[in-house]
């Protein structure tokens, strides 16, 4: 099992203690432990957030391989959009306890429907948008014990309208994608302006 997750000289190192391994190797061992019982679903909670980019890339490659070789489904929990874009098939965006958007990765990154998703994508630095100011989301995530009424994202939303403060939006389907937004309009595409994305 250790060999499968890429630990060199696995048979010799079986007797070593965790502190004798590097961070990347320890993360591989965690993945090996999770795979011992041959699960059909692997839940990975921020598995690369403490790692260097090079080790992160290696762990992502490992997860891709496991998925192709063993058909393991992966629920990958992350705040790193880059990693999601590179690894995942579908993305579910959560805000204050509920799903605000769900869909395939490619259309979601190219044309995010929910203002929160739009803002998150615009906030990530990319080589393609070098030097431009990064978009930020004003305010902070509300406390789960004191949620705003109506749309929970409304206090921070660039497109907020009065209706959002009263009515809590439903998750609606559009072309196989789902979005929870009061002012999202399927006929005109999506939320009217797209100024959040400074592309």
């Amino acid at each position, binding site marked *: 099992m250790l060999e499968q997750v890429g630990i060199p000289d696995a048979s010799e190192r079986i007797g070593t203690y965790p502190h004798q391994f*590097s*961070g*990347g*190797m320890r993360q591989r061992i965690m993945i090996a432990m999770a795979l011992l019982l041959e699960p059909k679903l692997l839940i990975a909670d921020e598995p690369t957030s403490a790692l*260097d*980019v*090079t*080790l*992160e*890339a*290696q762990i*992502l*490659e490992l997860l891709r391989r496991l998925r192709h070789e063993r058909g393991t489904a992966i629920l990958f929990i992350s*705040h*790193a*959009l*880059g*990693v*999601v*874009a*590179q*690894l995942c*098939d*579908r993305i579910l965006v959560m805000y204050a306890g509920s799903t605000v958007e769900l869909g*395939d*990765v*490619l259309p979601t*990154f*190219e044309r995010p429907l929910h203002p929160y998703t739009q*803002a*998150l*994508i615009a*906030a*990530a*630095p*990319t*080589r*393609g948008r*070098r*030097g431009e*100011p*990064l*978009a*930020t*989301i004003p305010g*902070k995530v509300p406390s789960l014990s004191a949620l705003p009424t109506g749309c929970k994202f409304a206090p921070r939303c660039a497109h907020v309208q009065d209706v959002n403060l009263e009515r809590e939006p439903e998750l609606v389907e559009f072309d196989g994608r789902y979005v929870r937004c009061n002012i999202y309009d399927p006929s005109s595409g999506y939320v009217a302006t797209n100024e959040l994305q400074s592309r």
Partner: protein
Amino acid sequence: MSTTHAFVSVRGLRTRFGSLRAVDGVDLDIARGEVLGLVGESGSGKTTLGRTILGLTPATEGSISFDGRDMVTMDRAARRGLRRKMQMVFQDPHASLSPRLRISYLLTEPYEINHVADRDRSSVGALLEMVELPPDLASKYPHELSGGQARRVGIARALALRPDFLVFDEPTSGLDVSAAAAVLNLVKDLCDRFQLTYLIITHNLSVLSFVADRIAVMYLGQLVEVGPAEQVLDAPAHPYTKGLLSAVSEPDPRQRSRSHRLLLPGEIPSPRNPPPGCRFHTRCRYAQERCRREPPIVEEVEAGQRVACHFWDVVRADSRDEVAGDQGELDTSRPLT
């Protein structure tokens, strides 16, 4: 930049901890007003280089000059005066801000330590405003702050002494996307507003693509590539730079193919016992017999771009081909759905 004298100039710098050679022969110039990004994996020695430049870690060998004055040979009092003009913003604000002191005290502490006269002090409110924090934060303790707020307090503390030169160690590590973006915007604004010179240390090249004018790439205590940010990012001439770039997960699913081209294999070897010849040869896909024997010399491959690699011309040609091939390409061999 060699025509005017460099603001910060480092020559032949070595920092050893016993047999561990953390910084092993670094030459580097930073011009006034420039933002230099220093990138490398954990264990490359980048934080030690930053600390050594500031005098927080003593240099074993070499020279460091600041605004034309040699820091190493200068007497203690003069160095203390100069040190005020160069500050570090530490990586983990919750570890670097004492948990039992209020923010107002933490922000005035630099003045007490340096016996700064009242007229030369900025008020706590002014310091908080500089980093876009509300004035009522002054009475709070570090644990009451979010990660992004604590990071800003760390920056305000560094700005208190009105420095000319700031070293940031991983300014966005541990922050979520939106908080990281806000801190990066702030860091950049402050640089323009106060005409500061920056050294930004990070393992994340996408951070540097946003803020840096020039990028220096460090591996096992040595610089392997230095150059203008655009050149280093678009046409890297060292295989390690290429490897780091390929490892960045861009938030664009269309670039999925990129991350598979050149995975940087393995991990950085121990700096106690670096590989002979070129230190990178054990992980390099361009390595030849020569690389195992002969350490490369630093060559200027283009104006301002210096690289330590025997085969930089091959590497750079590959980089250029890849950029050309990237236009609109989508790897269809990997299903997206």
